């Protein structure tokens, strides 16, 4: 009896030891994760620090690479004068309008192409032929057709967003496993139900990838378009300040683009996890 109890004690001890070992492992993993987080945050700070030092000590030419503190100072100055706000607003409205004008027809056509092979065969050569042309190369044409007003910039963005989204949406639908179509058919889905419950949600993951791509292209296009043919917007800020050799002001424009690019991709990622909870 006594010996049995002792054996029992030993078993408990062994178990405790095992739990301790695993706990230590867990703690180590948590520590590793924290180190990774710190690395992610510290890399941009580290780069800015080096930049600051090199520029202040004139190892790199401060006329071309003004120290970050100077750029921030300029940003605050431009922000308080209100002029910057106007440019940002103009660019954001163009991006948003152009994005919607491109994405909505692209999703519609993409879904139709994915669902009906006749539509797919008719449109895909047209899309394949037009896609390789950079939208910026079409800018002169767009300016001739739509004039130099706001609408021509919106059209430029819409055209550049359209292609990645339409291609990915169509691919998203055609790549849906055939068994889900069989299930829907066997359980009596009508065309509307099939569209809403099978084709659209099934295509969503690949479609969202297309939209992410479209967002990146939209930002690229707006800046370039504003550099060429506009008198407002973030692209205009960069170009005009470069021409006037106001380099810190030019850097402010670059920082704004970086910021909005990051913000948009965060927003889209949030939207993605809302729309595709099942992935």
């Amino acid at each position, binding site marked *: 009896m006594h010996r049995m109890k002792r054996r029992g004690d030993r078993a408990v001890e062994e178990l405790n030891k095992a739990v301790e070992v695993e706990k230590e492992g867990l703690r180590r993993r948590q520590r590793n994760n924290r180190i990774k987080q710190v690395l992610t945050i510290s890399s941009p700070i580290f780069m800015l620090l080096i930049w600051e030092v090199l520029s202040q000590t004139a190892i790199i030419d401060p006329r071309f690479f003004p120290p970050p503190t100077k750029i921030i100072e300029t940003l605050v100055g431009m922000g308080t004068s209100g002029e910057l706000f106007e440019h940002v607003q103009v660019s954001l409205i163009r991006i948003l309008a152009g994005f919607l004008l491109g994405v909505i027809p692209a999703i519609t056509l993409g879904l139709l192409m994915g669902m009906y092979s006749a539509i797919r065969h008719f449109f895909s050569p047209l899309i394949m032929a037009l896609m390789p042309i950079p939208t910026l190369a079409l800018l002169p044409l767009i300016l001739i057709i739509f004039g130099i007003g706001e609408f021509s910039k919106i059209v430029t963005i819409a055209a550049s967003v359209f292609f990645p989204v339409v291609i990915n949406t169509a691919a998203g639908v055609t790549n849906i*496993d055939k*068994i*889900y179509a*069989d*299930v*829907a*058919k*066997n*359980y*009596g*889905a*009508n065309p509307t*139900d099939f569209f809403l*419950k*099978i084709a659209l*949600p*099934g295509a*969503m993951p690949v479609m969202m990838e297309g939209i992410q791509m479209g967002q990146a292209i939209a930002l690229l296009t707006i800046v370039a378009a504003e550099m060429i043919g506009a008198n407002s917007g973030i692209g205009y800020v960069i170009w005009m300040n470069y021409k006037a050799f106001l380099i810190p002001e030019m850097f402010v424009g670059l920082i704004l683009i970086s910021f909005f690019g990051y913000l948009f991709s965060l927003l889209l990622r949030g939207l993605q996890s809302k729309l*595709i*909870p*099942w*992935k």
Partner: protein
Amino acid sequence: MQSQEKIQVNQLTKVFFKNKERVMALKDINFSIKNGEFVCILGPSGCGKTTLLRILAGLEKSSSGDHRIHASRTNHPLQSMVFQEQGVIPWMTVQENVSLGLRMRHVPKNHIKERTKTYLQKVGLTPYADLYPKELSGGMKQRVSIARAFANDPEILLMDEPFAALDEQNKFILQEELLSIWEETKKTVIFITHSIDEAILLSDRIFLMSAQPGTIKDEVKVDLPRPRQMTQVRSDPKMADVFLKIWNHLQTEVQESRIKSER
């Protein structure tokens, strides 16, 4: 009622072309199944048993011949299928998957709710109702698939090797669960399998198929009392004879088709 003919298949033939070569997938299939019967179709892979089921499910058309499913009620689907492994739709929750057929038929909301709840409970998935299939094991996914077919309340059920991808233990558990749900509803079932044990456990009758052209070669009656259990089927000496008979049939079939393909 019990002896009423439920499914009739007459001279069903299916031919298709594969790389311009003619393949006789099914030839002169004839059978009739009574209301409430559980029939397994057993045969080597490539014998056309899945094609036969897909024709009955309305997913493919026969080349000639016809088949009929007799409806005893109006407003109910003729058939619902339990698909092989991947048939659970990943972007629908367990609950949405189970209610799929009812939702597609646009029956009243409270009816959908009630039937979905009942069948979720029957397959033990009530706690998982709001999960997505990615979070389920293979066995749980097939439970969803089975609940979905029963909840739809069709005239007959078609099952296409629903347990083929499961491990042995899970397979036994699901087979017995299927039997107990089936005992309650007494629906007519056609069940495709290549497992002899599974066929003996489940069926009233077993159709043995041969390949190229796919035909029904023989029929075996399984007159074990119900409810059945795997242990009881395994220990029955009569069933050992049935097993051997089917085994020999399949052996010759596989060998013949090998000789044919080597020629």
